[in-house]
């Protein structure tokens, strides 16, 4: 960005500060937070793949071609074809859309609803025991099992998968936010705001919410990673989006029966899924180190 400004600023600083960086700001940031750079970069690439899927040399990911089934990776079909002759490269690239949408939307929905429940629990103490017992009850059902059970009730669709996974992730956020609210309420600046006559809605919005955001963003990235894995697992066992939808879990499910002879069907979606989840986790770890230095490299 404004690289010219750096020497001037540095000249004005006292000598005890470290010498000004020799690199540009971007390079400095990357060196200081490699996780955010690598993770964020990979997520950026995946987003481009998802958005630009139709223009990346793909064919219709649902088109069947019985004459060309189970072709090994080759020039014509980079990742080979599946049992129904569908091009796996196209299905994997389009599959990026499902994983990213599920990951991002679940992270957003779980954060917003968990935040709401946590704030209510932290401020309206009469409701707290009831809400937290319900959260504990949901937490007592392992997330994948809860999502499976909920999917058993409805039709397989991306929307329903998102709702099922969100429900399993909300309690974590609600507990996190509630804990932070209870801690913040004891802080002098909050007491001062109350003493100055700040009304509760304004107090929550101006003083509480901004102070919960940093840990919440970190938690949201982890939820995004977990949501992508659960979505793939649901598809893999046949409880997720309909099999015709190109998603990484579905491609792996199709390759399941043939993995000993045609391992490439499972390999490509597995690789993309692992890489994307890794990117999100690296971003989460990097954000945690950056936003909360106290946790630092400790955990």
């Amino acid at each position, binding site marked *: 960005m404004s690289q010219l400004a750096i020497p001037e600023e540095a000249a004005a600083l006292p000598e005890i500060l470290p010498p000004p960086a020799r690199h540009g700001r971007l390079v400095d940031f990357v060196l200081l937070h490699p996780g955010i750079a690598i993770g964020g970069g990979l997520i950026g690439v995946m987003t481009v793949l998802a958005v630009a899927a139709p223009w990346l040399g793909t064919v219709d990911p649902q088109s069947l071609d019985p004459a060309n089934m189970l072709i090994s990776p080759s020039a014509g079909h980079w990742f080979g074809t599946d049992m129904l002759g569908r091009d796996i490269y196209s299905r994997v690239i389009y599959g990026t859309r499902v994983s990213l949408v599920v990951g991002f939307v679940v992270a957003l929905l779980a954060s917003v609803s968990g935040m709401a429940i946590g704030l209510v629990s932290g401020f309206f103490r009469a409701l707290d025991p009831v809400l937290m017992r319900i959260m504990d009850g949901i937490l007592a059902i392992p997330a994948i*099992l809860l999502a499976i059970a909920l999917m058993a009730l409805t039709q397989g669709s991306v929307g329903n998968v998102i709702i099922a996974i969100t429900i399993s992730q909300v309690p974590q956020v609600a507990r996190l936010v509630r804990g932070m609210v209870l801690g913040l309420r004891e802080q002098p600046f909050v007491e001062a705001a109350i003493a100055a006559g700040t009304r509760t809605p304004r107090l929550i919005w101006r003083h509480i919410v901004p102070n919960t955001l940093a840990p919440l963003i970190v938690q949201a990235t982890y939820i995004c990673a977990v949501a992508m894995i659960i979505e793939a697992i649901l598809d893999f066992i046949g409880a997720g989006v309909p099999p015709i939808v190109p998603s990484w879990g579905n491609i792996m499910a199709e390759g399941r029966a043939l993995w000993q002879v045609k391992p490439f069907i499972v390999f490509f979606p*597995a690789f993309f899924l692992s890489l994307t989840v890794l990117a999100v986790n690296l971003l989460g770890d990097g954000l945690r180190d950056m936003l909360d230095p106290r946790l630092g490299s400790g955990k």
Partner: protein
Amino acid sequence: MLSYIVRRLLATIPVMAIVALFVFSLLYLAPGDPAAIIAGDQATVEQIAKIRASLGLNQPFVVRFGHWLWQVVQGNLGTSVFTGQPVSAMIAQRIEPTLSLMILTMLIALTLAIPLGVIAAWKHGTWIDRAIMIFAVLGFSVPVFVIAYLLAYVFGLSFRILPVQGFTPLAKGFWPFLRTLILPSLALGAIYVALLARITRAAMLDVLAQDYVRTARAKGVGQSGVLFVHALKNAANPVVTVAGLGVALLIGGTVVTETVFAIPGLGTLTVNAILERDYPVIQGVVLLFSFMYVLVNLIVDLLYSVFDPRIRL
């Protein structure tokens, strides 16, 4: 001490009640009318109504929930829609592979993860620490079925050392039993090892910064004495807590691992029940797994007082 145990036991009651309510609602909300299914295609509306009344299906939600809960407490989980067998019998038939898999996974994971975490904390900031932490991030990120296929491909298909499918009961000998479980346990355990190594390292780093560790060093306690006697015991509580919470990952992972390795356990039972929309079976499995999970975490809470005598006060 006794009041602590009683308090913890009482605290699990509302949690299990919420779980039971959720699981019951699952059957209550499930599409399809059980009375119509039992009556068959030829039944008249009156016949269906009669069956519905005899099953108690026309009673209010609360009454049905109470009745169902009373049956569950007595061990009656209902009947499978698909096979007609009692759900509790189906679970009993399939519990051995699942429990064996989970216990072996926990054993392997604990013996791997705790030394890894201790070493990472001891060599804090070195390349050894970094290598262990990179492994931990990978363990979190590579989903269980990917690790499962990778292990099966390398050790099962390429080297042909271990079987990649099926399960041999313990009754047919310990070695054949163990052989079928090694690859599934390693696959299932990866995320658990990652989780535990990370928390062990963090807890050890906290403890190693304490004054009493410095005192121990000052009076000449050796490195291993400091690490394993003074530090690890005091770092035990967070590790045990996370080990308990991580059981949720194992339970979820079991469903997938059993599918990949074709192990006839509760995981494959769940998957089949999903595909057949066999709600009583889904209900039974969810209830059982959640109960196991709550029980494990209750035991974890009771273990605190073993590692930290202050809690007994």
